């Protein structure tokens, strides 16, 4: 198994967990896109992470 599979599994689990927590589709997509960008090797700066927080929190 490679990271591809591990990440795909993680994304699926995130979707399921998020659904149980009643997150909106937009929030789920933002979390997935964060995971994707880490997967692609993006070293997340604090600022970027804060923007993710803002986006996820904004849909509450």
């Amino acid at each position, binding site marked *: 198994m490679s*990271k591809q599979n591990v990440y795909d599994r993680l994304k699926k*689990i995130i979707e399921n967990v998020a659904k149980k927590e009643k997150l909106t589709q937009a929030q789920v997509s933002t979390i997935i896109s964060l995971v994707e960008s880490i997967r692609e*090797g993006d070293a997340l700066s604090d600022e970027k992470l804060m923007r993710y927080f*803002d986006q996820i929190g904004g849909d509450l």
Partner: protein
Amino acid sequence: MVTHNLRIIGMKWKNMRNFEQVPHPKIGEKKLNFAKEGWTLLQIQNNYGKTSTMHLLRSVFTGVRFPRDELKKYRYRKGRNDWGGDPEARAEFSVMLSLDDENFEISTSLDWKNLSQTFQTYREGLGKRPGWNPPEFFRSIFEGKVDFAELLILDGEKARKMNRNTGENTIGRAIRQVTGLSSICDLIDENGEEGKISELIKELEQTVGSGGKKTQTLEESLRLCVEHREWAESERDKLGEELEQLNDDINEIREKLNEFDDKYATDDEEFKLAVDNKLKAKEELDSEVKTVLKKLFNPGNALGDNIWEDVIEFYTSQIRGKLPGEATGDWFREIVEDFEACICGNPWNEKMKKNVLDHSESYVDSRIMPRIKRMQKKVVESSSTTTVGELKAGLDALRRGYMRASKKEREVRKNFSSEDRDKYKSLSNSQGKKEERKKKISREFDYFDSENRDFIMYHDLDRYTVTRNMEHNYITIKPDRFEKIINISEIKKVEQNLRLLKINTGTSAKKANGAILLKRILEESIKRVLQEIQKEMEVEMNNFAKKMPGVDFKIEISESRLIFINESGDIQTDANESAELGAIYGLVSALNQHSDVSLPIVVDTPLAGFGKSMSKSWVDVIGDGFQQGIGLVNSGEKDHLRFWWTQEDLMLYTFLREDEVVRTERGPDGGDPSGPMFIDSSVENFDLYGIDVGYEKKSAKEEL
């Protein structure tokens, strides 16, 4: 498919141990090139520097310097000037690597005189610069991660270490590393350490001004909560210290009691027999208790033959009856594509179809089917082997046996002198009291320290945490309530919630809510995916390890170590060396199966601890498990692996000195070989090296 490829493409030594300059600029191979795919075997005489090379590789891979007092070990061997090296010079070592399309080189220089070590890195386009500066991806995998590098640059010492509880979560970290999940894990709180999200939440808290009354109340509650958490942590630490002290005391008492037994056992056969019988009876009773528990978990035994046969018949019909081809997303796709109406009776429209297809894989996990099938098979194959009555009778018999043996031992102890009897009694009493105290303190320690949800809920440790107040996220903010909480993870929950509520009074509310939500989702998801991977790896590791003779136990993985479980279900604290190595090779191979990056493996004297018959198994386990492998072998191991390197296309190198007699590994006069060391790439010399040292003759004798 892996996303990155890492390969070792070369190595160089200068004035290091027995290597004056290897590869030599004039004799033999001018460069040591490794097979990028497949295995390279380096045949190096014992004591030339194989182990040192492994340590140097780990240092170069991780950028971690050696302790200062170890640097002298790498100095060029003194008094060997006839070899051409400089015993006064620094020891130097370089590794050439390729990561995807980039080639780079990391060198290290060991100044054993001034006790310092430096690194240099060559990068294409950047040239050679001081410092440890490999490509970013390499850095993210290896920087400072010695325990991870040790798994890929592997020797017997590591295998032994993995079977001991080191307290470090080496395996857990390795799993996160190879799967590429570690960057996500860095965001969340794990194993008592705060992740990046928690750090940023604290930063957000700083952005809230002094604010109005509400903020001030929350601030005050937060202050009290932090104080309360610190109190709980100090109480936990006190209990931890007491536990440690109790363990020491108990061990000391045990030793003293054993001294009594030893003293009388040497003089008195009857006493020795009584003590041995009691121990034996206790072991038998313990073992039977475990067996009974295991058998009780077989519902066939608990339910009895009649009912269980019905259950088996039912599951047999289920297997024959074939459950829906794939109870997965495919099933939902099929009903959309093959039927005109939905199962509710309404004809499909595009919106309905889209909705079902979009969520087709959310309803049932794609791995559910194999699991159901496995469960059905287990049920069908199971049978009742005994009855509860029989189990009880067996247990009772052993318990009576133990009581008799204990009584006998007590009677024989009466032969002790009255002074010794008193001392023994006093020590036994003291041991009993301390054991009791330990049990109590242990539980209290767990009340404070446990993060296990089941434990927390079972002991009602979250009683004062939860409220019905939705505005407070159902978590208390009242000091008179949260000051009654003793479990630290529950107090932290309150503390975090107070921070969130406080931030919510400021302008960063949105961010804070997002951060908390993200942390919660990621923590739960990562926990689940890691649990799955760990279980799958356990299966793969056992499959690999089982190929090795001597591995007749089951191996389980914990975050920090390998746990060997023997046939009766007991943890085996000790395993022989070959079994330990078999287990670790199994683990490394399983890790590689899950790896996101195609990694090389370097093994030092891979068959040390194994007999000749293990060679084939070793090649089966590790030989095909990695795309690039480098083995540092001596001539004996070379012989054991003859079936491999003569049949497959391996790169073979022999390290030898200019006037060394190939067949004897000695000089022409039988003394130490002299002349500079060089690398020979001929298969013939690889084959003949050390052939007269005795391994071949020994193996011929074995065959006879």
